[in-house]
């Protein structure tokens, strides 16, 4: 047990500030703003339900990484939930396989209003490498309404974080 405590103490806190870059210098400010919105409109807690509607699982790996100690998305009041009934946002990866079409629609219907849908990854955004076929509906927007697209194959955790921050940019 002492070894474990020693390791935890030596590891320390690694969570990074999202460093502003040339492409998006306002990330930190946006982060603070998002936090304000989350605090005010969502009582400090923005809940995301992730739905894999046909992805190759690459996007899932990077969405997962948002929870590791470096990105620690919960510090913005954002967390992933187990049921669409608890969710404010559906984060959907694609392409939407035809075999997942009904399940995705039902998940969308089970999510309480107001709700937002984020299509994640090139396949979710436009069909990507798989497109539309006998087995694939292509983009998420071909099946349910989409509010925000985060392209990338897969988008890195930082891209996901920036995408999330931009969702309420206009509001």
């Amino acid at each position, binding site marked *: 047990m002492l*070894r*474990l405590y020693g*390791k*935890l103490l030596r*590891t320390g806190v*690694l969570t990074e500030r999202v460093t502003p870059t040339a492409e998006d210098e306002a990330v930190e400010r946006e982060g603070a703003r998002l936090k304000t919105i989350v605090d005010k409109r969502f009582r400090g807690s923005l809940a995301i339900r*992730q*739905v*894999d*509607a*046909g*992805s*190759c*699982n*690459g*996007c*899932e*790996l*990077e*969405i*997962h*990484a948002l*929870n*590791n*100690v*470096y990105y620690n998305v919960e510090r913005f009041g954002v967390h*992933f939930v*187990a*049921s*669409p009934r608890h969710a404010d946002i559906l984060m959907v990866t694609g*392409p939407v*396989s*035809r*075999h*997942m*079409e*009904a*399940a995705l*629609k*039902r*998940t969308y219907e089970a999510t309480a209003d107001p709700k937002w849908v984020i299509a994640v990854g090139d396949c979710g955004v436009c069909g*990507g*490498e*798989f*497109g*539309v*076929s*006998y*087995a*694939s*509906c292509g983009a998420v927007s071909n099946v349910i309404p989409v509010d925000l697209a985060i392209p990338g*194959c*897969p988008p*890195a955790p930082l891209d996901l974080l920036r995408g999330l921050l931009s969702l309420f940019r206009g509001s």
Partner: protein
Amino acid sequence: MNEVSRNATVAESADTGRTFYTMLVSEGIKARLIAPSPLPPADVIELESGDWGRCGQQAGAQGWRWAGAWAEDRGSHLAMNAGLEKHGRYLILRTALPADNPALPSQAPHYWAADRVERHIQDLFGIRFIDHPDPKRWTRHRAWEETVHPLRKHFPADGTPSSPTPPDNDYPFLKAQGASVYEIPVGPVHAGIIEPGHFRFQAVGETVLHLEERLGYVHKGIEKIAEGRDPRGLVRLAGRVSGDTTVGHAWAACMAMERAAKVEIPSRAAYIRGLLAERERIGNHLLDLGALCNDVGFAAGYYQFGRLRELWLRENQALFGHRLMMDVLIPGGVTVDVSPETVRRMRDSAASLRRELDELLPILDANSSLEDRFLTTGVLSVDLASALGALGYVGRASGRSFDVRRDAPYPPYDRLNVRVPVETQGDVASRFWVRYKELRAGLRLIEQILTGLPPGDLSAQWQTPAENAEGLGAVEGWRGEILCYVRFGAHGRISRYYPRDPSIINWPALEKLVMGNIVPDFPVCNKSVNGSYSGHDL
């Protein structure tokens, strides 16, 4: 080595397709050993379709492992293939079937692994498998009718889907009867950030009586949309068969195409592919060891392994331009070189990861809550693993040491010393520790590769192969053996692509090892196998 075991080794290495062919002929089975083999280094035996099941029975009796099967629409007829392996030698059985109303005896009565693979072929080609023990649909839900077959050449890739696609709500699951038996349906949308699939449990109290998997939800027509692609386009698609195995599948597809086109890749390219594959193995093992800790409530382990994985992925990004190393392999070689600076960085990071693992080992080993939840949970016996033909760490935790890198070595592994850790307990703890040991073995391989890295080109000139040229690739991905079959059509375009992810073989193991466990242990059992849904569903 004593005399007896040396003789045994000689006998084993002589056990090739020719031996099997001779045996078939002596049994009065009409067979033809094709020489030279169209799929070297594998042997190919042609059979009459009526003998398909009987040959499967013979192969089983001779100790051949059933490694996969695929069909092909050859215009005038259908071709059916099954891959077998014994002592690192591959053998392909092949037969021809009429395009109208094709049927042949199933190999599933003799090989468990053939069950779902044959049903996949039945759904996509319309081949009927006689005497199949459970011939209900598998990959097909309701996106196409039973009477149409998407992998027939005349079927358009766009299909004729009715919109919206109805849900798959009439699949005939096994039912259990009795006063205290209840059913738990789970999925396709699961509670975490994971892929979709359906699990149907029958339970009594907390004890799992029976689990039936229902997969196919992420079937996105990979085999169909591969047709007509150029070689580079195929590698891009192969890199997305299962995103966590992008290097593994890209390598298998490249190997199949390079063998078909008789392109020899430069030694340096092979070594760099080896580096990428070992990095992929380590990255995934780090993720899953953390996830296994998380599934039993050991958050500190989850965050420590997650931290190591994130550092590893960031180094992938810095050295190879992509966190998951997508699109670094191309037909004929690789796109990214390894500079002396890269070599230095990778040596440092390997040493540093080893130090971290040394530090974590006693913490994990002495943790009684891990011990409590991992030991004797989800046992896959050595016999069952052998009957299923379990691959990769699932097989290696249950006494099966097969590893393509060591047993059917391909460059650069033919010049490396590949250590394969094996355990025999077959529980979650065994699978956890086999993967921990594979981390260390992977680091050792990275160091060997960096030491032996030869100078030379990054890729060979691509040669467009003749129409009908075919190739078979076999590599050891992080989940286990990946097989890949490719046939070229006219103008160097792909006419058939079949990737067999190890998950296709390993998924049934989960159904077996979870029996008798409690329902709350299902997540950790599932994670300890960690099949790919996407790699399975295609």
